[in-house]
């Protein structure tokens, strides 16, 4: 439930408006951001180290912090070393290392310039059970650039059971995967969104090399002789919740979380080209991690309130030990339970348009891979 004031009425009544704010802010590059976790599922466990992203800058990718020494320490003092496998991304190298419920863990970081940071030790709490995962279809309208746009969607819910004698601090996170088909063979010489038409052949087809075909015109028809399999036609795109969902201890009855709303999956002809895989993770949280996610939840839901929004400062549990640098981030220890379902194209109660013709490589889509995931049947 969200009690937020909408300000549309005030807008038209009063000529209210939204403009970019000109407040000078210091560069964000000094802020280090830590993102890591350990769970009771098999590793490797990943810690990423990056710089915060300055606002008002075109660059939206965080600059990774490379060359750091990172290890995860448990309450016996045993240390698991992580190694950097891509820039700024570090993962455990011991394949036998796995988090255990009841144990405490923290992360130790030493950057290449010698600054050291540690997280507060977090107890890996058990998480109860994730009993069911289900959906509802919803007709929905959004207003984009002052125009109403149909934005129908699936609402995802779970039922879960918590544990007795615990605080039941839980986060639910959905991960979505869908298949798309791109048409790199129809790439047009002019590039962009223009594509050639194969029959009759209109325009000059210049297939991308990853399409595995070349092209020529034969009797007014484009012909695509194949020399290799296409590696950028079909991809699986993954996405995940942008708004965290945490348990509301006031709304739990006898440790049962009933119909927890986890998120929405927008229905588009691309996402539902074939079918959509939704997985929900149920993770236990320490009080500090819970508070971190809760502040972010509020940021997300109250950002556009007409009244002054809540400006929670999500600082996390990492602090410097030999310096006074600003650091943001979380190293959490969680028990994890998962459940997944497929949302089929047929579940959409109307006929979806076929997928559009995109001639770029499907690997250009953010978070896309061309290897079919193991769960994809």
């Amino acid at each position, binding site marked *: 439930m969200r009690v937020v004031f909408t300000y549309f009425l005030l807008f038209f009544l009063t000529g209210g408006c939204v403009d970019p704010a000109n*407040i000078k802010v210091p560069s964000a590059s000094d802020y280090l951001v830590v993102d890591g976790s350990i769970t009771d599922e098999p590793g490797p466990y990943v810690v990423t180290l990056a710089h915060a992203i300055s606002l008002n800058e075109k660059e939206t990718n965080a600059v990774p912090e490379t060359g750091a020494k990172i290890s995860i320490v448990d309450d016996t003092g045993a240390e698991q070393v992580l190694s950097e496998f891509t820039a700024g991304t570090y993962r455990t190298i011991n394949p036998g290392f796995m988090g255990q419920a009841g144990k405490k863990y923290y992360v130790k970081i030493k950057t290449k310039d010698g600054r050291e940071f540690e997280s507060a030790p977090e107890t890996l709490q058990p998480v109860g059970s994730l009993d069911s995962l289900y959906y509802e279809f919803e007709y929905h309208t959004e207003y984009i650039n002052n125009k109403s746009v149909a934005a129908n969607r699936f609402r995802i819910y779970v039922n879960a059971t918590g544990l007795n004698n615990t*605080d039941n601090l839980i986060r639910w996170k959905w991960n979505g995967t869908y298949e798309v088909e791109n048409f790199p063979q129809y790439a047009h010489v002019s590039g962009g969104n223009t594509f050639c038409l194969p029959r009759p052949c209109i325009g000059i087809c210049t297939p991308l090399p990853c399409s595995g075909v070349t092209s020529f015109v034969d009797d007014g028809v484009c012909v695509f002789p194949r020399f290799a399999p296409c590696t950028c036609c079909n991809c699986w795109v993954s996405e995940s919740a942008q708004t965290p969902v945490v348990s509301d201890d006031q709304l739990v009855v006898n440790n049962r979380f009933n119909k927890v709303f986890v998120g929405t999956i927008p229905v588009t002809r691309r996402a539902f080209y074939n079918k959509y895989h939704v997985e929900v993770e149920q993770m236990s949280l320490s009080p500090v991690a819970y508070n971190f996610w809760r502040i972010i939840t509020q940021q997300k839901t109250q950002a556009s309130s007409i009244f002054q929004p809540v400006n929670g400062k*999500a600082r996390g549990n990492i602090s410097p030990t030999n310096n006074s640098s600003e650091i943001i981030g979380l190293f959490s220890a969680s028990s994890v339970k998962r459940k997944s379902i497929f949302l089929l194209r047929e579940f959409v109660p109307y006929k979806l348009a076929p997928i559009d013709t995109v001639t770029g490589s499907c690997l250009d889509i953010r978070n896309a891979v061309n290897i079919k995931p193991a769960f994809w049947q």
Partner: protein
Amino acid sequence: MNLILKILLLSSFVILGYSGRCQSVLSYTPDGSEQGKSLKNFIEELEGKLTVRFYFEEAWIEGITIENSYAGKTLQFMLDDIFAVSDLTYLEFNSHAIVLIRNPEPGMKRKLIVDSIMRRQSDLSKVVFGTPQSYDRKKKIIINGTLLDLQTRRPLGGTNVIVNDLHTVSTADENGKYTIDLPPGEHILTFSRVNYDNESVVVEAYENGKVDAMLTESAIMLSEVVVTESANKEITTSRIGLTTLNVTDMKRQPALLGEIDIGRQIQQQPGVTTAGEASTGFNVRGGGADQNLIQYDQIPIFNTSHLFGFFSSFNSDNIKEATFLKGGIPAEFGGKVSSVLNIKSKDGSYEKWGGSGGIGLISSYLTIGGPLRKDTSSLSLSFRTTYSQQLVNSIRTNYVDLTNSLVKFYDGAVKYSRRMGKNTRLSLSAYHSSDQFRLSGDSTYQWTNWATSVRVDHFFSPDFSASFVAGWGAYAYKVTSSSVTSGFDLSYQNSYPVFKTDFNYQTERHKFSFGLQSQLYIFNPGTLQPAAQSSVKYVKMDEQHSLESGIYFGDAFTLNPRTTVEAGLRLSIFNSMGPANVAYYKNGSTRSLANIDYVDSIRDGQIYNTYVGLEPRLSAVYSIDGNSSVKFGYNRMYQYLHLITNTVAITPVDIWQPSNPYFKPEVADQFSAGYFRSLKSKKYEVSAEVFYKNIENILDYKDGSKLLLNPNLETSLLQGRGISYGIETSISKITGKLTGNLNYTYSRSLRKISGPFPEEKINNGNWFPANYDQPHIVNLSWRLALSRRHYFTGNFTYHTGRPVSIPLSSSIVDGVPFTNFSDRNQYRIADYHRLDIGFVIEGNHRRKKIWDGTWTVSVYNLYARKNPYTVFFKSGPDGAFTAYQLSILGTALPSVSYSLKF
């Protein structure tokens, strides 16, 4: 002789310093034979007896007879005694010359005042008490009386009683009674009160006397009266930090969408700021919007806004008087730490039926009143409603489909007054306001206020009176979401029976007031009722019961002719009562649900927590001369109800939380001092006032805390200390074609929240600016009379931008992008400034006509300044993050309204 006299007069200042150095003729002792002689004869005899010369004009002492025997007294004593009741005085020159001087000033002054009064008032009555002969030198002359409304016969408490020639002012008490001391002779008294015509009377007094007066409510068009009555207001009101709001002035200022609003009038006062456009809540001297006690006929009102704060919920036509106090608050008021806005509603006339009303762009309003039985009982009714619903539905917008939206508000009031015999009066008052707001497919917000009261005023004797008030108030809101999957009704209610009894007793020099007040609070802090198909869970928060009581005593007295003092003491008691479940937390750990040690169940009616506050109050005025005064005020106040909010403005869904073991009462100590002066025969007034305020136990929220439906609110909130200080300066032009006021305030409002644990600190426990810390505030308002019926009015406002916490950068953790905010309130939004202008056309000034009509054409925000209300953060389609500012009123808003009085 005349020539000599003049020379002597001119040099009298020099001579004064030398008198009395050698054996003075003034030490001569008369033998008693002078009794019954004329003064002239006595002087002639004396000149024969002693080496002394008297210089004087014979006409001056003609008719003066020596009534008493002065045997054994000195000549000095005798002359002082005789001249005390005349304009005469004397100077001794070289021990053997006595120069009689007639001071022409009082007489000339009186003539001037009489002339000026006669210009407005066709007749000036004169009353005489005693004769010069009956004057008893040992006693002061006391004049007292009662001031009543001519139509309703209600006492007019707070009326200024001005002795024009002496520049002294005193104020009538609650029951309209006043007492003044006068030197013997002729004086001109003026009874002056906001929204009433001045009434003057010449009093020649040598003995005590009684002067009662009935004042007439001003007809709107008599602008001269309004202007005059505001003269002397700052300098002569006996209290620091007091403003009486003038409804007539309010109607002549440009108004937002033509709606006359008391909230906006208050925001023009020095030292008062507001969070932004959409808030009638106001911040007084660095206090929160919840720290203002707003009373309607003695019953506190919790939410004073219509339409999300665009307008206040009081119909200004129904306001008889609104008093605003921001410093030196008297002991009868308690429960809030920053200010008091005391609204008295209108009574119906006991004489004839009449009314007033108006039509604006957003709402229309009507007030009518009159006798039910002439001279015995009267009724007043007022109602205001909006037709913005039609307006909203008729508008086509790109933002949202508004055909299913809903915007409604109304407020109404009824008052019945009855005289029961000579000494008792009864009044019944009821007030209700209601708001509904819904956007297409969105939640509906509703909120209502109720305030009802029965009041009996009784005079036990002319000097001893009492009032008894029994009332009931309620504030409720409801949010209804009609969503199929997540529909709910969220409701919240406060109700509070009120009982008050106040006594006033006055003697020659003292005005005592004392009383007992008690309010029971029954709070239902939230019920969440899911709709039929909804996934929302039912939640009902426990009711909270508490009792706030106050007992007070105050005394206003004249320390000496230049100094008036009002001192008081209030004892407030706050009891928390069961049923309740109070959580206790483990020692040495931060308050969180995980650290609950045990929960104590308190049974019904059991008192489980008590706070007692002792609140001294003091205000004093020292009049330096007729044109300037110095004032001082001190007050300590306790506040036991806290508004739980994480927004700047008061919103309909905020929660009021009574003090309990975890929420200690807020305690404010305020010192204020000011200098007030009028210049150029009261054409201008200037003032400067400084204040310092310390507030303990101020509430602030933890980042990311949950405030709604939280039974353990103590886990989400922190208490700390707030200070504010500043200087308020003001210059007003009171008379002439152009009148106006310019004020500038420099003030700071800072907070420090520093608990023992890191999560109980805000900004690492350092001082930080409060949400409403606005160091520089400038207000300018003017009214230019283009003719007797046409006015060009306007106001300009500037204040430093509010502090905000802003997004500094963004980060991604576990796939979730989020914003990194700065420390709390470390940045500021752009400065706020706005110019409004208005053109007022009043009806003709003939006394006999069916109604007075007034047109007001105004433009709000003339130069279309986009004042930022808030800064927020939006993630663009490509994932780029941008900070935006929201301006609620980004354009010039013209409006036309018509108001009438009949």
